[in-house]
């Protein structure tokens, strides 16, 4: 059966009204006098107590829809067609008073950045109480209720938190406060727009669990927006996949992720590094091309230009939303064969030589870095010993605040380490700061920063950005420079027409390519990659990871790869280092670290990441957040949060670095064999990774 259907035919027999009904929604923005339709013909419903997810890469209209639902669109935006109903009430026809009432009692929103949702000058308690007052609670009772609500979002010290100002709380704590405020009025619909994107994986896991618990308790319906497919799979009953403002696919979450029926969904799922795929096996899939510019949509199917299954019919005839049974819809003429989408990767991969045999390129011994701020000593790094071998990728993982970036900056000479620290390149001691290093030493060490907007001078053209590095580091001049420039940009797959552009005119992926080209301009031997893909969409991330991989094989460069995304680290790394509070907790070859035995911290980190493969797996949760580096816990610094806490010894004695396998060391009091037994290393994890 393949007819165009109305996905939300009103169901009169149902006793209850849906929490949210969106029908044929069209949203336009007026840009320079032109109406640009950014959301077109989107329909979905969120049932009572249901959790509905909207996924898609950035720029697909997810947030625009969320804003329209509560009528928060920017001044130049308007709903130009369709209808929105919350609890059966038409939102678009409401006057100001009705809208206020709706927002106070029926619907709440939680955004990505909790810090910006709170007033920095008002104590947290007052702000939470205010929400209760708006919802009609008397002033003297509001504070009491605020305290109760903070306890419900599992804040262990609600009184203490209420007395503080927002800047005194961590990101995870703030998001709990915001969720508490959102739930204060017991809304029937809660809209969560990327609520955990700004948080660490461990904190994200806690917040997601909290939302699941609260949903059970309050019976709230959720509209959950995320670019992270793993998070959506964990949180949602049903999912809608958006692309360029159109609904491409809709259906029960599990089914969509198990058997996607639209080429875009298929491609998106393939971009994510899977745990059974390593860089040695094959390159990641990507989605070619890019999102069409709003207002310049092609005829026919708007995905046709990027689709591997495209037929003439796709360009001529716009596909309707086909009803493909079992509550599923797909906007593709060829939805039956969507999963035969051809793979988009480099076909042949020369087998990589293992880097393990190579000698040490960089040796780091006893590196510490203490920051002094306001009379306090903050221990950023404490006695780090490491080795980086030529041509290998060393993955550096840990929560934010664990010292990853500090270590990278010390290595590069941007931050001077404490006295007594030793860094050697080729066995020669490296001067502490970059300006004291020789030209050869400077050339050898380069970096790709996390945020290309900060890393690329926004006033310089691409040509200038790369040429300057070529002449300064590579010593190229004149014709030789031009030739090298052309070769370099083709290696990072930029084209000549990009050379005249400024960073602001490039997409995120292209900017990162420019940054990579610049890092490789002087033929470096070690490139530090500091979260190079965390600001990018998954399909672009895959392309950048492939590029890094490609360059590594060609140029024989070693990477120090910093990432909070363990999937990415697993895919790319030969060896892994796990940092916690500036200390190395575990180091070893990637396979042994991921297959175990593991440090309890590594175990928890791995368990925190929501993945598509094991949405139902039992998780280990870390209690609370990373302690202050100014005042680290005694003994084993991890003992305050350790899920496998032994007892007194953990509090008093710093654990030794035990050898688990050759080259694999774990800093824990629990003997390696015991860890192996506890974690069932030959069990679940090994099975999942074979």
């Amino acid at each position, binding site marked *: 059966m393949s007819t165009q259907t109305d996905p939300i035919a009103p169901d009169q027999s149902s006793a209850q009204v849906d929490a949210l009904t969106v029908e044929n929604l069209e949203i336009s923005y007026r840009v320079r006098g032109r109406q640009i339709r950014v959301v077109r013909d989107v329909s979905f419903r969120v049932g009572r107590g249901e959790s509905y997810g909207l996924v898609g890469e950035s720029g697909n209209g997810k947030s625009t829809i969320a804003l329209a639902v509560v009528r928060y669109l920017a001044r130049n935006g308007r709903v130009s067609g369709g209808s929105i109903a919350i609890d059966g009430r038409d939102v678009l026809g409401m006057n100001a008073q009705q809208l206020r009432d709706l927002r106070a009692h029926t619907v709440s929103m939680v955004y990505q950045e909790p810090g910006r949702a709170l007033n920095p000058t008002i104590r947290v308690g007052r702000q939470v109480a205010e929400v209760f007052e708006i919802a009609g609670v008397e002033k003297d009772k509001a504070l009491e209720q605020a305290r109760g609500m903070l306890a419900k979002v599992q804040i262990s010290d609600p009184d203490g938190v209420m007395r503080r100002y927002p800047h005194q709380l961590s990101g995870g704590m703030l998001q709990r406060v915001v969720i508490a405020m959102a739930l204060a009025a017991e809304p029937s619909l809660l809209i969560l727009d990327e609520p955990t994107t700004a948080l660490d994986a461990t904190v994200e896991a806690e917040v997601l669990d909290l939302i699941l618990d609260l949903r059970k308790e309050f019976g709230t319906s959720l509209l959950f927006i995320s670019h992270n497919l793993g998070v959506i799979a964990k949180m949602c009953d049903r999912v809608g996949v958006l692309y360029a403002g159109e609904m491409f696919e809709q259906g029960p979450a599990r089914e969509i992720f198990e058997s996607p029926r639209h080429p875009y969904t298929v491609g998106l799922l393939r971009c994510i590094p899977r745990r059974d795929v390593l860089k040695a096996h094959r*390159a990641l899939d*990507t989605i*070619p*091309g*890019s*999102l069409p*510019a709003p207002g*310049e949509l092609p005829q026919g199917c708007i995905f046709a230009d990027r689709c*591997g299954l495209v037929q003439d019919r796709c360009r001529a005839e716009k596909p309707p939303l086909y009803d493909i049974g079992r509550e599923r819809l797909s906007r593709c003429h060829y939805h039956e064969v969507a999963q*035969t989408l*051809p*793979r*988009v*990767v*480099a*076909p042949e991969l020369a087998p990589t030589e293992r880097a393990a045999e190579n000698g040490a390129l960089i040796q780091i011994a006893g590196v510490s870095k203490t920051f002094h701020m306001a009379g306090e000593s903050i221990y950023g790094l404490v006695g780090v010993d490491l080795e980086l071998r030529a041509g290998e990728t060393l993955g550096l993982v840990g929560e934010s605040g664990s010292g990853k970036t500090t270590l990278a900056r010390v290595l*590069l*000479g*941007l931050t001077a380490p404490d006295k007594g620290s030793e860094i050697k390149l080729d066995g020669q001691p490296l001067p502490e700061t*970059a*300006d004291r290093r020789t*030209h050869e030493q*400077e050339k050898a*060490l*380069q*970096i790709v*920063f996390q*945020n290309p907007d*900060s*890393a*690329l*001078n*926004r*006033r*310089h053209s691409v040509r200038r950005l790369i040429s*300057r*590095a070529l002449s*300064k*580091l590579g010593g190229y001049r004149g014709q030789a420079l031009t030739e090298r420039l052309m070769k370099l940009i083709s290696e990072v*797959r930029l*084209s000549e*027409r*990009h050379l*005249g*552009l*400024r960073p*602001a*005119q*490039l*997409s995120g*992926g*292209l900017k990162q*390519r420019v940054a990579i080209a*610049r890092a490789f301009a*002087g033929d470096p031997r070690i490139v530090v990659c500091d979260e190079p893909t965390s600001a990018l969409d998954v399909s*672009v991330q895959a*392309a950048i990871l*492939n590029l890094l991989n490609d360059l590594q094989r060609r140029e024989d460069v070693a990477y120090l790869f910093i990432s909070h995304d363990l999937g990415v680290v697993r895919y790319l790394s030969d060896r892994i280092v796990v940092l916690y509070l500036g200390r190395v907790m575990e180091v070893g070859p990637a396979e042994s670290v991921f297959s175990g035995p593991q440090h309890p911290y590594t175990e928890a980190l791995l368990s925190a990441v929501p993945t598509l493969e094991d949405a139902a797996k039992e998780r280990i949760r870390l209690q609370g957040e990373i302690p202050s580096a100014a005042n680290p816990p005694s003994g084993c610094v991890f003992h305050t949060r350790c899920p496998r806490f032994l007892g007194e010894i953990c509090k008093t004695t710093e654990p030794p670095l035990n050898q688990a396998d050759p080259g694999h060391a774990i800093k824990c009091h629990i003997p390696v064999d015991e860890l192996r037994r506890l974690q069932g290393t030959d069990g679940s994890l090994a099975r999942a990774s074979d």
Partner: protein
Amino acid sequence: MSVTAVPVESAGALSAGKTEVRRELLRELARSPLFWVGCFILLVWIVCAIFGSTIAPDSPFGQNLESINKAPSGAHLFGTDALGRDMLSRVIVGSRDIMIIAPLATLLGTVAGTVLGLIMGYFRGAVDDVIGRFVEAFLALPLVVTALLVTNALGRSNAIIIVAIGIVFTPLIARTVRAAVIQERELDYVAAAKLRDENAFYIMFVEILPNVLAPVLVEFTVRLGYAIFTVATLSFLGLGLQPPNPDWGLEIQQNYGQVVAGFWWEVLFDALAIASLVIAVNLISDSIERVLER
């Protein structure tokens, strides 16, 4: 399963031209009516300053004892002064000095302040502390009093007034630039420049300076308004041109006694000229600031 070759990821350069961002700002600016009002008034005075005696209906020096202290009329639109000189012509020609001194003084202060601010903001530490103390000391000096002292000590000349105002403006501009530089130097492109062994001069002037030009531009236009006012004040105090040369501030000083006698036009039009010029510059600076701060 078929496999296609790696394509170029995202042809996603926006379809924008090279100067699209800047053009967007200009378009925004062009939409502001107040900006155009400011530009128009400023242009009128620029034309007066350049072509003063050519476009003036009369000679600004031509005394006519037959018609002294005449109220505005068809023959003399702005009336005549106590020596029978045409006020309109004197106002037109009187724009010249102020239109030379004020922009040059502001330019001097902006250039010096930008250099100082770059040095303070980039090096921080001891350099910042030492220069910072001097800057603070300078900030405490009232503009007019300082200029008075300098001209009294060094003599009256346009060059000295320009330098005096420029020196007083320098720390004000340095402070603004320093704040902007401190933000910029934390960005990764500065770290990247250090990693390829750029010297401090290159990083300050080639990497950072282009990124702090927006606040410098705003500061320049704001200061220009103050400079116009200061120059007028100084000439009112007798430190600018000397009689019989036409000059707004000087003329107000010469003629303000006449207001009591009812000859208001001998002061009013000069005062309006000063006010209109200051307002025009402020309208322009406000519009620029609003556009840049978006």
